[in-house]
């Protein structure tokens, strides 16, 4: 059985090809550019093949505008801290992770950049009609977490972009890429941050971002690029402008292996919906899900009402070997929106490798612990 239900933290297991490609790099070596001998050419080629695969996954024809970083937090900081603000005002979605929350709070305190939470419903879904009525004239940037890492809600990016028009839209796709559709060009997304180790099933330490107009941000890191080396200024073209220093080529090889070997989902959608339906009927549990099941991804959380989050989490592992994450999930803004701050919740996050039997086992384990703890408070 697969009892690992913490894939929103990092995916496990990985496709076997991830390890195979990492081993291949360790035995072959080579860096990105800087020389022309075959070992370097092969490594450079793998980096570019992986860039192309990411452009396909995000549905953009702008391959050069896919930039590699170490993870989505690094990508989001590159964009948010490098952004050229004019009016110093940001709109953010109500389910943000600290990968966005902390950089914008830093900018608020150090640079006086204000941020406002977008109008929304009780599950954090952005209220498009209310957004249409909002004054966007002095907004520099809109940031939206595509899929919440707490209740798994999927935000309607296409509709949001239609409303905000020319205001740049930055999407945090940490939980969505590899799990739900992302159509950068069709939806008009201006910037998108992603990580390799969650939905894409790659290794940790590799992520990146897409940017439609590279001139709207400054580089975050300055250094060698293997190009324009006679000048002390950073190149102003992509990907060089945002890829100073040696990239995580080991991670890129692993990510390539993952992208080329994405598994089909082993559990059925009906079984997942049934799991959600049955959990929503349990007394003594508050379920954190999208109000409309059509907006639900494979992540959700719940709060036990008769015992603590930490005790329930501990019992899931001690009695049933189920691995989940309890607490705030680095998302105080999201938990405030969902009225589960500061105690947090217990998060369940699936993988394509789970089966219907795994979901049944999970449900029965939660039911048993709920029964055992029902008289605690």
């Amino acid at each position: 059985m697969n009892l690992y239900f913490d894939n929103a933290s990092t995916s496990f297991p990985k496709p076997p090809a991830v390890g195979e490609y990492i081993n291949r790099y360790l035995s072959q070596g080579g860096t990105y550019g800087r020389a022309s001998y075959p070992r370097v050419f092969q490594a450079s080629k793998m980096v570019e093949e992986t860039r192309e695969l990411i452009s396909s996954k995000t549905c953009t024809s702008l391959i050069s505008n896919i930039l590699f970083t170490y993870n989505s937090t690094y990508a989001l900081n590159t964009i948010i801290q490098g952004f050229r603000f004019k009016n110093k005002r940001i709109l953010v979605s109500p389910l943000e992770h600290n990968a966005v929350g902390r950089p914008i709070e830093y900018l608020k305190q150090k640079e006086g950049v204000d941020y406002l939470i977008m109008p929304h419903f009780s599950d954090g879904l952005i209220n498009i009609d209310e957004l249409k009525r909002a004054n966007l004239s002095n907004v520099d940037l809109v940031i939206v977490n595509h899929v919440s890492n707490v209740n798994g809600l999927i935000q309607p990016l296409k509709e949001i972009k239609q409303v905000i028009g020319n205001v740049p839209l930055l999407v945090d796709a940490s939980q969505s890429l590899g799990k739900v559709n992302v159509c950068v060009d069709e939806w008009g997304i201006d910037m998108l941050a992603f990580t390799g180790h969650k939905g894409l099933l790659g290794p940790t330490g590799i992520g990146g971002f897409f940017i439609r107009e590279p001139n709207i941000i400054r580089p975050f890191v300055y250094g060698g690029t293997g190009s324009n080396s006679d000048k002390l200024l950073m190149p102003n073209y992509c990907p060089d402008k945002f890829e100073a220093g040696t990239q995580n080529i080991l991670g890129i090889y692993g990510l390539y292996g993952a992208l080329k070997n994405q598994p089909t989902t082993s559990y059925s959608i009906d079984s997942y919906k049934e799991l959600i339906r049955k959990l929503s009927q349990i007394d003594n549990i508050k379920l954190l899900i999208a109000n409309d099941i059509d907006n639900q991804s494979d992540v959700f959380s719940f709060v036990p009402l008769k015992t603590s989050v930490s005790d329930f989490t501990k019992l899931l592992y001690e009695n049933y070997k189920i691995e989940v994450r309890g607490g705030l999930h680095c998302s105080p803004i999201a938990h405030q929106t969902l009225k589960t701050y500061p105690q947090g919740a217990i998060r369940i996050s699936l993988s394509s490798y789970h089966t219907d039997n795994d979901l049944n086992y999970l449900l029965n384990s939660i039911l048993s612990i709920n029964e055992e703890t029902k008289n605690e408070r």
Partner: protein
Amino acid sequence: MKKPKMSDNCLLLFKNVHDVIRSEKLIKSKKFDYQIIPVPSNISSECGMCIKIDEISSIEIINILKINNINCNIYSK
């Protein structure tokens, strides 16, 4: 990759390795002869790579690269 003849070749120079790799893929797929070599120091002090091709194929190759939004400079002896 089949090396072009040494007597009648030219070099394609790019702004970065990203464009070199993309171009190599296109040139290879069209079955042109080519070779990846270091950028000669009399052309640039850059430490990167460039692509050597048969001069006779250069116009056709340049057109293919242009269609794919890749700009390059041509260096002929």
